[in-house]
């Protein structure tokens, strides 16, 4: 199977396709929210963002952004390598947050209730054949 290059539009499209097909609205708890993951120190030195829009439990948008990044209810930022390890399922997102490798901006109380959903997103994401 061909691999998708990490953080390219093709990779994002494949992740979105899998999320939409594998995560039901119930599994997503009919969540309406937005999330931005900010990848610092990408291999080319740039900072990139992946923006997720969720409407009633459906991931309606997943796009890779550069330059001025959009606002979101939750912003998670960290090094490219940290996110890459999470995407390869080598590192749990929770332990990355607890260890200070990732930074969360947003209402922590709400974020707690979304932690399981983010885990499901990450799990699906880790199934995408990816070239880092």
């Amino acid at each position, binding site marked *: 199977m061909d691999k998708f290059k990490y953080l390219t539009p093709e990779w994002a499209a494949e992740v979105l396709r899998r999320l939409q097909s594998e995560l039901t609205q119930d599994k997503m708890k009919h969540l309406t929210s937005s999330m931005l993951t900010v990848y610092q120190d990408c291999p080319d030195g740039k900072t990139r963002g992946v923006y997720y829009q969720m409407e009633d439990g459906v991931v309606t948008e997943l796009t890779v952004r550069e330059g001025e990044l959009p606002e979101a209810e939750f912003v998670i930022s960290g090094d490219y390598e940290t996110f890459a390890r999470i995407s390869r399922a080598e590192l749990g997102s929770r332990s*990355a947050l607890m260890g200070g490798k990732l930074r969360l901006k947003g*209402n*922590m109380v709400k974020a*707690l209730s979304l932690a399981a959903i983010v885990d499901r997103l990450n799990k699906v994401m880790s199934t995408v054949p990816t070239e880092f």
Partner: protein
Amino acid sequence: MPRQFVPDCYAIDFAKRIRDVQDEMARCNIDVYLGSRLRTLSWTLDAFLPWRSYVVIPSSGLPTAFTFVIDAARVADESWLDGDHVLGFAPMGGQDQITLLSECLAAGLKNGRGVVGIESGMSNYLPEGNLTHYEYERLEDALPDARFVNAHDIVDRLSLIKDEGTINRFRKAGCIVDAGHRAVRTAISDGGYRGMTETEIAGLAAYAMRRAGSEWEWSFTGGNEIATGYRTGLSGGACTPATRRKCRSGESLMVDLHAMFLLGLGDHAHNYLLGRVTKRQRWHAQNFVDLVKLCLKAYRPGTSPSKLADEMMIFCEERGFAEYMVPGFEHGIGMMGDEWRIGMNDGPFPYWTNPDHIYRTGEMLICAMQYACAEENIGFRYENAILITAGGCEIMSRFPLSVDEV
């Protein structure tokens, strides 16, 4: 949106309290206020915050509270603020208390410049909650262009005169304490005290008060303080967490109960002589009751702790029991966490009660006295929340004053 202000007899206009703080901040050129003391949290948020917590008050608009994330949803549920203004902190990247606080404080400054009001000082009350040295240093690091000033006087001044909602909460807490005392008296009467331990008495009182609506036996001095025998007479011993000691005939029993109702605090101590009572014990008991009556008559606007203590100690000397008295007849009280100093921090010893503080109508305090005769293993305590009124004082607990013989 924060909760609507619903007027009932226990309602407090917290939005107005915040506006009053903001007016004082403007007067003192403070851009943003960081409250960390338990008394400030109760007074501004209307919720009990047992974990390390903070409130950030901007120059205008709603405050934001920060507490340990495991308790934030509960605090938001009980506070007048909504979930967007009660945030949780946790040991996670971007969510630790210093990061969250510094970001919130920075939003109240202009490009990081301006004045941050903090709460610093000392207290003999353990859970006071002043900003710690470590917190102060980290916030200074995070906001290098801000100036930090000690500003706790703002809340101290505004919270000194109690509003009607606060007073009614104390009245209710006083009624609840009375329910606890009734339960104790019933349980120990007719020989019921025999074999009963101090902890048992504390527990049965707590059960009765909880049934009457108390949220907590709030005192950090061990909840309901119960003492029997020699423990009632420990010199100056105004702190007696209950032990497993059993009640015995011929001894005294001191029952100091604490109830909490919507952060209003009930505090009343009642005393007993158990079984066989000697003439000498009755003499001690009569001294104590007469002193309490005299003291309650003396509380009025215009008097001060030192003036009142002088008057009382003259009476004690005349009656021949001055050596058994702690020469202090009060401690401060307010919503949960405001439990020690009376008035402002303006006395000869910083952060202790100013002995020359002049009481004003609308202030509340605990009328408190400790009678302790160590050599005879006997003692009594009086505590009751009182409101200074135009003509004297109103007592919150109505349990009849006496040293009951059971």
